[in-house]
């Protein structure tokens, strides 16, 4: 806290002209096409205004025009880093509306794939956070491992990034032979790399100096801004939909919810948010191991669903724990095969709204770091 105080002190003594500068939309560290209008006083940030809309891809318009299965690819493209997780609340919402019970095997495969994708997402998040702080090597480590995960997902679904694999009432295809062994190998590899990265990045003293005590998000602020996911948990709030509102079969697994503890700084700083992501990878590994052990190999991967998906009239809201936070889908059905309205509640959009709140008073270079620790994806922000 001492550094921060020193900055505050200096800031109050030196009065200089404020300057407005523009970060983005084409900037290597904005994680996409975000534009931040920043007011700086020397090197100190006094105001941040995010400008959105550079990746507005007319998501809701497409949902109006497409049939329910055709909407799925657009759902993938919301949070394109964790497409499997995106598809899940959507199919769950439809299953809830149509009252379909999916076979047990499907649930297990969904859990495994979603957790694999969560690991892949957190790997990107931690890797790019390292990049923002100036550490390049963890980026290479994580992307090496992420590729192995993508191989599994590709073998399952045929695509590397945007899968379009979940179906209402089931999945597009069954698991391939050797799926379980592949997953267990990945788990081993992820743990090995995480142990390496702990020394290389997380407990590296330069990295701690850079990211601890920076961008402190107090728990009450986080709750007031409706933050979710690692951003909320980094502030020490134990809230995870997988535990608090267990959907699918998450109540069968034994796992912990890592929260920020302020190990090297204050609770809720950038380091904590990052640490939560690393620990969540370990928890995902645990879930995958348990799911692999319990998963039945026989049976169909699809419930009996009519070819033409026509949910009855009504409304439904379903949410799930995405790697970035709560992702919810609100579907209004009018009884036809196209949704009347489909609204997505993206976690990135909500989490981004705390940026102006938590980046005031820090150095300009820290703003980039704070943005990286929030881990936004612009496809979900602008939709």
């Amino acid at each position: 806290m001492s550094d921060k105080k020193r900055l505050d002190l200096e800031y109050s003594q030196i009065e200089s002209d404020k300057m407005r500068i523009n970060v983005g939309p084409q900037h290597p560290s904005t994680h996409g096409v975000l534009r931040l209008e920043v007011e700086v006083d020397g090197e100190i940030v006094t105001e941040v205004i995010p400008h959105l809309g550079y990746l507005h891809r007319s998501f809701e318009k497409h949902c109006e025009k497409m049939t329910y299965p055709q909407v799925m690819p657009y759902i993938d493209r919301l949070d394109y880093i964790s497409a499997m997780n995106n598809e899940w609340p959507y199919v769950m919402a439809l299953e809830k509306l149509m009252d379909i019970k999916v076979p047990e095997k499907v649930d297990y495969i969904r859990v495994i794939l979603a957790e694999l994708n969560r690991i892949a997402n957190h790997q990107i998040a931690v890797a790019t956070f390292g990049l923002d702080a100036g550490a390049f090597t963890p980026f290479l480590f994580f992307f090496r491992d992420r590729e192995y995960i993508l191989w599994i997902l590709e073998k399952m679904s045929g695509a590397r990034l945007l899968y379009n694999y979940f179906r209402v009432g089931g999945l597009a295809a069954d698991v391939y032979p050797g799926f379980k062994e592949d997953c267990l190998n990945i788990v081993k590899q992820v743990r090995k790399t995480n142990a390496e990265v702990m020394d290389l990045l997380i407990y590296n003293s330069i990295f701690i100096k850079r990211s601890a005590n920076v961008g402190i998000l107090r728990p009450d602020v986080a709750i007031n801004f409706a933050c979710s996911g690692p951003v909320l948990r980094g502030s020490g709030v134990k809230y995870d939909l997988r535990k608090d509102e267990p959907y699918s079969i998450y109540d069968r697994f034994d796992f912990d919810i890592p929260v920020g503890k302020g190990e090297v700084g204050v609770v809720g700083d950038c380091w904590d948010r990052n640490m939560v992501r690393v620990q969540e990878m370990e928890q995902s590994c645990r879930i995958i191991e348990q799911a692999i052990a319990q998963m039945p190999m026989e049976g169909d991967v699809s419930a009996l669903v009519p070819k033409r998906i026509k949910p009855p009239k009504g409304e439904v809201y379903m949410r799930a724990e995405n790697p970035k936070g709560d992702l919810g889908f609100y579907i209004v059905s009018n009884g036809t095969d196209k949704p009347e309205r489909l609204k997505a509640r993206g976690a990135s959009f909500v989490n981004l709204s705390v940026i102006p709140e938590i980046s005031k008073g820090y150095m300009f270079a820290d703003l980039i770091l704070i943005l990286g620790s929030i881990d936004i994806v612009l496809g979900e922000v602008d939709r």
Partner: protein
Amino acid sequence: MGLLNKLDDPYEGGGIVLGKVEDLLNWGRSKSDWYLHFGLACCAIEFMAMNASHFDFMRFGTIPRTSPRQADFIMVTGTVTFKMADRIKVLYEQMAEPKYVISVGSCSNCGGPYWEHGYHVLKGVDRIIPVDVYIPGCPPRPEAFEEGMMLLQSKISKQAIFNKRKKLEAEL
């Protein structure tokens, strides 16, 4: 490595190559292209993977630049929206000649999945800037990036540097 093999030829005194200055310049130009990475959407994530351990984009001699003034070509990876389009045009115009454009992914090729109802999506980046290489896919595989880069290199290595206008007129 073609040039070095030629230099190994057993001429006395060694190292004599007969060729056009144009070829030499083009050889140099095509093997060290710096690019302005313009990551816009999902394709940019695949491009990140392309830059990382397994695929190593830099072995083509490419170095990512963040300023258009230092870049030889621009990689438009992702969905170009109307709001973004004028930015791309400005950035392209800031680049120094000779400059090239690689359009990555269906979105920047033609609008991709958003071509029909995407009221805010530009239906192809070639409507605002000239494109040299199109890489198809949604998103393209890293192997497709490699092929696209090789295509650009072969295009650069065949280009005229001197008497451009004369040659163009003769062609027409």
